[in-house]
């Protein structure tokens, strides 16, 4: 595809967020530009999903400022129309076929320059499932159908929650290829994950070092944002 996102960016400045009454993390500052990929890591309950929801605009940050934008001819494209949320829930109706489900989301989110439904499914090697009801698919197949939604209506910023959970090795490789293609087009990917995603230049944000109780701990200051290799090689708490 010849088409490129120009000037996609996600900027967090001293962002704090909570779930319910419970403050999960504060002081998060990071800048992402087109082509960047960020892995959110941290133990269960450290706020990975909550941060994705804040980035998507479904929840408000408690403090700090958050910018999600692209360069565009039209000023003020709302954040909601720029992001894709690949949640741990699939958003698929079991009574409808794969094609009907994706056709709905395609017309709901708008088509733009997106891949056709058949192409998007083929890229994830599930083209043969197109006319089956979603109810008969396995967990991994459902997940792949949900991920196909990311490419049928293009948006510059992908927020993914455990995207490779339930996927076998070959499927996650195919999916990572799709992600790399998205980055090559100038898109941004933020993924909450427990596994090392094999992406070039993947940055890692460890949410446990932003938890309020650790805030006075100076040791985390310089090393909160680092490259993925060192996070996975040296362990989470070095």
């Amino acid at each position, binding site marked *: 595809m010849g088409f490129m996102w120009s000037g996609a960016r996600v900027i967090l400045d001293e962002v704090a967020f909570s779930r319910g009454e419970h403050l999960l993390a504060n002081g998060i500052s990071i800048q992402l530009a087109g082509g960047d990929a960020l892995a959110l890591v941290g133990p269960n309950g450290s706020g990975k999903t909550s941060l994705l929801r804040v980035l998507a605009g479904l929840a408000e940050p408690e403090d700090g400022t958050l910018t999600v934008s692209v360069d565009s001819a039209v000023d003020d494209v709302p954040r909601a129309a720029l*992001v894709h*949320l690949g*949640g741990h829930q*699939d*958003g698929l*109706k079991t*009574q409808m076929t794969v094609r009907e489900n994706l056709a709905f989301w395609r017309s*709901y*989110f708008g088509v733009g320059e997106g891949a056709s439904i058949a192409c998007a499914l083929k890229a994830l090697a599930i083209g043969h499932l197109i006319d089956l009801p979603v109810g008969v698919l396995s967990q991994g197949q459902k997940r792949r159908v949900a991920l196909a939604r990311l490419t049928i209506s293009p948006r510059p910023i992908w927020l993914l929650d455990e995207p490779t959970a339930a996927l076998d090795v070959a499927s996650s490789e195919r999916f990572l290829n799709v992600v790399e293609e998205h980055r090559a087009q100038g898109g941004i990917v933020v993924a909450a994950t427990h596994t090392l995603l094999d992406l070039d230049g993947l940055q890692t944000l460890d949410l446990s070092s932003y938890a309020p109780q650790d805030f006075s701990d100076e040791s985390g200051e310089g090393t909160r944002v680092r490259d993925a290799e060192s996070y996975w090689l040296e362990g989470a708490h070095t």
Partner: protein
Amino acid sequence: MTGPFWALIARDVRLASTASGGLLTGVLFFLAVIVTVPFGVGPDLNLLSRIGPAIMWIGALLATLLGLERLFQSDKDDGALDLMRLVDAPVSSFVIAKVIAHWIGSGLPLVVVTPVFSLLLALEPPAIAALTATLFIGTPALSFLGAVGAAFGVTLRRGALLMAVIILPFSIPILIFGVAATRAAIVEPDPFWPPFALLGAISLIYAVVGTLGAAMMIKINDG
């Protein structure tokens, strides 16, 4: 037509018409109420045609509320409710779309079968016409009202019980004016238009209040 609004209506109507959807359930429930009442009341045709409109309206009220609990819950359960908010449109627009789809899938079928089902309650043609018209005008109010309850259900556990408690009192005016207008077609001196116009007014008010209320509940839930 495309765009999120129409896409959502088309999908929800499609879901309602599947085997596990609410369309058939609602119509069958409506039929069950209408069929059983004459057996309970006994073989008195005059009595039956006098209380017929009220029975039809109560049947329609209960049949409409039957599937409403799931209005937002199924989308909440599979994560679609979050995804639906990721478009450049206010939450209230997808609430309206979902309620319209709900009405097409539950209220409208009841209106369509009313002329036939009315025969089981010995209603005269003028009463049947009036009943069909009042159900057509009044059932959207039930759907919009139910949307508030359904949004409560998404936010709070035990929503179904709460929904019945919250919704039923507000559905009483719809029932009163719907039955009053229909009765006017049977009992001569009663005027038809005043209660009918009030029923229309209630529908319009509930459309606004119900939409905003449900949208607010959903935003609070996710906030």
